[in-house]
C-alpha cells in the first residue's frame, strides 16, 4: 500500500493515463528519443560513473596507472587469502581437464559443451550451483530471430548501446551465435514464450530497433538456469560439482600457463589444490560491492571474485571504469528496495512518469541514459517522489500495459513482478510501481577475444566476468545471451586446448610477486580478496564482535 501522501501524485498518473494510452496506440514514439548530444549531456551530468570520486588510479598489476571504479581498485589492491608456501603443489588434491569456476549460466554452459567435446570438468562454485545472477534475469534474451530483424541489426544496436566502445569481434560473436543459442536451449528443454502462429514472441528492450527480446514469462533466467543445471546434474561422471567451494587463487605452471586453482571449502575452511589443463572463469559480476553505496539487483555472491584472481595472475582488465545502473530498481516498499523491475515492463508499454504524472523521457533509451534521466528528474528537476524512508523514485505505469495488451496480460507475462508487489498490498495491474536506478551489471571485466581466451594461455573467461562485449553499457537481454554464447565458446575452445597442452611444474609465485608489487607501491592494507561474501552485520553487533583476528567476512 502506498502512503496517503502519495495519493495526489497517483491521481495525476491516473488522470494522464488515457491520453498516454492514445499516444502509445498511435505507434509514434511516446516521447522524443534523445540525440547523441543529449545523451552525452545527461550522462555527464547525472550518471554516477561521472561523479568526481567514482574512479581512481590503480597502482599495481596489468592495468597500473589506469582510472578504474574506486571500489574495484580497492578490491584489487588487496592481499591473498592464502600463503603460497603452505601448499604442496607436487601432489594436487584433484586432477581434471578443465576447472570451471562459477556455477551460474556461463559455467554450466561451458561445462556441458566441454563435456560434449570429451573433456572432464570440475565446477567450483561459492554457493549452490545456479546461485547466480543468471537465475534472476526476468525480462529476456536478445536474439535476432524475427523476419523483420537481422543479426547485423542486433550488432548495430549493441554497438550503439555500448557507445561504440565494444570490441567488434565480440559483438559479432554475440549476435551471430544468438539464433543457434535459442535452438540449443530449446533442445535442452527451455520453454520460450511463443505466439499463436508458433513464432517466438519478441518484445522491445531499451535500445533495440527491432523487437528481439525472447522470454519465458518473467522467469526467463530461472527457466534457463534450471534447465542448464538439471542437465549438468545428469552427468555426474563427467562434471563434478563442488558447492560452497569457491576458487580463491589460480595456479600457474612454470611456463606461464594457467593450470588450475586453490579451492576453499566455506564450511570446513579447508583448502584444496586442483590441477587442470585449462581454467574457465565464469564468476559473474560485482553488484554486492555496493558501488557508490547503491542497492543492487545482484545475488548474494556477486563480489567480483574472478576479477581479483585473474588480475593477480596477470590478466588484463578492460572497461573497468564503467558500472551499469538498471533504471528500474524498486524504490518502495523498503523491503524490496533495489530489486529488479524487469525492463520487459517498458518493452510491453510501461511508461516512466514524474510526480505530476508526466512522461519525461523516451521509455526505452539505453540503460545508462534512461537511468541518468531518472536521476535528473529526481535530483536535478526535483520532480521525483520521495518515500517515507527518504529514497527517491519515479512512477513506472504498469496498469497501462493491461490497457494496451489486454486484461490478464500482467498475470500471464509478469507473474514474478505481480507476486513481488502484491505481498505488500500493491496490485501492479491497478497501480504503478515506484522505481529508481539500482546497481545492476559489471560492464567491464577481464579482457577476452572471441574464443574467450585471455593473455594467459589456458585461462578462459565467459559472461559478466569478461570485458569488451558490451563496451561501457550493456543492453537488456544481452547478458543472458552473453553467458550462453561465451559459456559455450569457452567450453568449446578450452576443450580443444586441453587436447594438446602439456602442464609443467605448478606454481603460486604470482601471489608472491603481487604482494611484492603492493609493498613496492607502499600499499599497506588488511583488505583480503576475493571478498566471497558481503557483510550486512549492523554497527551495534560489529562493536561486540571482538575476536582479535579476522579473515574477511569469515571469522
Amino acid at each position, binding site marked *: 500500500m502506498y502512503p496517503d501522501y502519495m495519493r495526489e501524485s497517483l491521481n495525476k498518473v491516473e488522470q494522464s493515463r488515457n491520453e498516454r494510452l492514445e499516444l502509445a496506440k498511435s505507434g509514434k514514439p511516446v516521447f522524443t528519443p534523445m540525440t547523441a548530444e543529449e545523451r552525452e549531456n545527461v550522462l555527464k551530468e547525472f550518471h554516477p560513473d561521472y561523479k568526481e570520486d567514482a574512479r581512481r588510479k590503480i597502482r599495481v598489476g596489468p592495468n597500473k596507472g589506469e582510472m578504474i571504479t574506486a571500489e574495484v581498485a580497492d578490491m584489487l589492491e588487496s592481499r591473498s587469502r592464502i600463503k603460497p608456501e603452505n601448499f604442496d603443489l607436487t601432489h594436487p588434491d584433484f586432477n581434471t581437464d578443465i576447472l570451471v569456476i562459477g556455477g551460474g549460466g556461463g559455467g554450466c554452459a561451458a561445462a556441458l559443451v566441454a563435456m560434449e567435446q570429451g573433456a572432464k570438468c570440475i565446477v567450483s562454485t561459492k554457493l549452490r550451483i545456479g546461485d547466480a545472477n543468471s537465475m534472476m534475469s526476468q525480462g529476456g534474451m536478445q536474439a535476432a530471430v524475427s523476419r523483420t530483424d*537481422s543479426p547485423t541489426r542486433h550488432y548495430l544496436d549493441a554497438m550503439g548501446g555500448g557507445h561504440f566502445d565494444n570490441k567488434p569481434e565480440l559483438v559479432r560473436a554475440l549476435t551471430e551465435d544468438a539464433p543457434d543459442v535459442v535452438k540449443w536451449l530449446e533442445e535442452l528443454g527451455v520453454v520460450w514464450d511463443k505466439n499463436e502462429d508458433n513464432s517466438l514472441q519478441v518484445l522491445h528492450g531499451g535500445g533495440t530497433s527491432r523487437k528481439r527480446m525472447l522470454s519465458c514469462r518473467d522467469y526467463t533466467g530461472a527457466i534457463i538456469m534450471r534447465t542448464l543445471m538439471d542437465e549438468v546434474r545428469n552427468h555426474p561422471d563427467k562434471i563434478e560439482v563442488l558447492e560452497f567451494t569457491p576458487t580463491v587463487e589460480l595456479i600457474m605452471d612454470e611456463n606461464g600457463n594457467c593450470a588450475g586453482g586453490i579451492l576453499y571449502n566455506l564450511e570446513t575452511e579447508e583448502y584444496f589444490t586442483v590441477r587442470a589443463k585449462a581454467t574457465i572463469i565464469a564468476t559473474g559480476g560485482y553488484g554486492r560491492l555496493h558501488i557508490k553505496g547503491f542497492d543492487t539487483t545482484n545475488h548474494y555472491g556477486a563480489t567480483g571474485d574472478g576479477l581479483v584472481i585473474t588480475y593477480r595472475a596477470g590478466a588484463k582488465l578492460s572497461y573497468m571504469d564503467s558500472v551499469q545502473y538498471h533504471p528500474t530498481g524498486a524504490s518502495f516498499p523498503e523491503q524490496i528496495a533495489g530489486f529488479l523491475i524487469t525492463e520487459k515492463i517498458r518493452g510491453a508499454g510501461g511508461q516512466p512518469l514524474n510526480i505530476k504524472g508526466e512522461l519525461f523521457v523516451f521509455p526505452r533509451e539505453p540503460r545508462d541514459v534512461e537511468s541518468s534521466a531518472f536521476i535528473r528528474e529526481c535530483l536535478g528537476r526535483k520532480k521525483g517522489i520521495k518515500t517515507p524512508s527518504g529514497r527517491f523514485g519515479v512512477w513506472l505505469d504498469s496498469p497501462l500495459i493491461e490497457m494496451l495488451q489486454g486484461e490478464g496480460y500482467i498475470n500471464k507475462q509478469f507473474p514474478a513482478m505481480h507476486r513481488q508487489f502484491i505481498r505488500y498490498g500493491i496490485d501492479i495491474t491497478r497501480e504503478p510501481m515506484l522505481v529508481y536506478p539500482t546497481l545492476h551489471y559489471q560492464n567491464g571485466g577481464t579482457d577476452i577475444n572471441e574464443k574467450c581466451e585471455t593473455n594467459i594461455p589456458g585461462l578462459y573467461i565467459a559472461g559478466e566476468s569478461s570485458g569488451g562485449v558490451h563496451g561501457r553499457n550493456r543492453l537488456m537481454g544481452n547478458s543472458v545471451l552473453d553467458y550462453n554464447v561465451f559459456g559455450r565458446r569457452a567450453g568449446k575452445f578450452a576443450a580443444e586446448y586441453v587436447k594438446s597442452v602439456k602442464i609443467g611444474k605448478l606454481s603460486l609465485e604470482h601471489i608472491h610477486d603481487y604482494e611484492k608489487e603492493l609493498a613496492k607501491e607502499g600499499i599497506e592494507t588488511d583488505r583480503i580478496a576475493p571478498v566471497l561474501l558481503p557483510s550486512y552485520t549492523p554497527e551495534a553487533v560489529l562493536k561486540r564482535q571482538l575476536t582479535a583476528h579476522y579473515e574477511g567476512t569469515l571469522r
Partner: protein
Amino acid sequence: MLMGANSVKVMDKSKEKGKKKIGDTARNVPEEMVTVYIMGKGYRVPAEATIMGAIEYAGYQIKRGAGCREGFCGACGTVYKLPGDYKIHTGLACTTLVQDGMLLAQLPFIPNEKPAYDIDSLLPDVTAFQKVYPEIFRCVACNTCTKACPQDLQVMDYIQTAMRGDIEKTMDLSFDCVSCGLCAIRCPAEIVQFNVGILAKRLYGKYLAPESPELGQRLKEMKDKKYNTEYMEMKGMSYEDLKTLYYDRDSE
C-alpha cells in the same frame, strides 16, 4: 542484539533516531521493533524486516540460506511458528516479513532425489515420470505441498497432472517454481515436486513446444553465412559512419 543482554538501551534501538547514508539519499533508522526467535534465541529486530533482513540484523553472517535475495532462487526456505498457533508455516526468508514472536529456522539444504537421466531417451508422456520419478504415484492428494508453497502454486495439482501424463499442464502449473524444496520436505509421500516440475518443463520445451518456422529460416541463413558481407562492411566502417548509421536507423 540478543534478548536479555543487559543494556536495554542497546537492545532496543527503537529509541535511537538517526540517518544512515546509502547512495544518494539518507534513510531513516526503523522505529518499530519486534522479537523473533532465530533457532530459539530471541532477538529484537525491525518490525518491517524480512526474515533474511532480521537474521542479518541479529548479526548472523549467512553462508547457506541466501541466494538471489529476490524470490527467484529458492535458497532461503524457512519454517516458522507463531505464538498461539500450532501450525508449521513456510516461507522464503527473503520475501517473508517477520512477525512478533516468530520462532524460525532456515533450511540449509533439502535432501532430494535427482536421478541422472538421458532426456533424449525419454518420451513426453507419463512414461517419463514412471521412469525418473516413480514415487509421484504415491501421492495421497493431501495438498500439504500446495499449502507449503511460498509461490502459491497449485503443487498437488501439478503432481496429479504429471501422474496423468499431461506434460503441458504440469509445465504450466509449475512454471513459477523456485525449487525451494518446502513442498518436498513436507510431503508425506516423499515426492520431490520441484524436480518433477523441471522435468515437465524440459519435456515440454524439447518435445511439445511448437517449432518456430522463422527460427528454422534464420538458422539456415546463418549456416549459409548470409550476413558475412554486412558484418564485414560494418566492421570496416569508421566510428563516425557507424554512429551515423546507428542514429539514422529506423525502429519497429
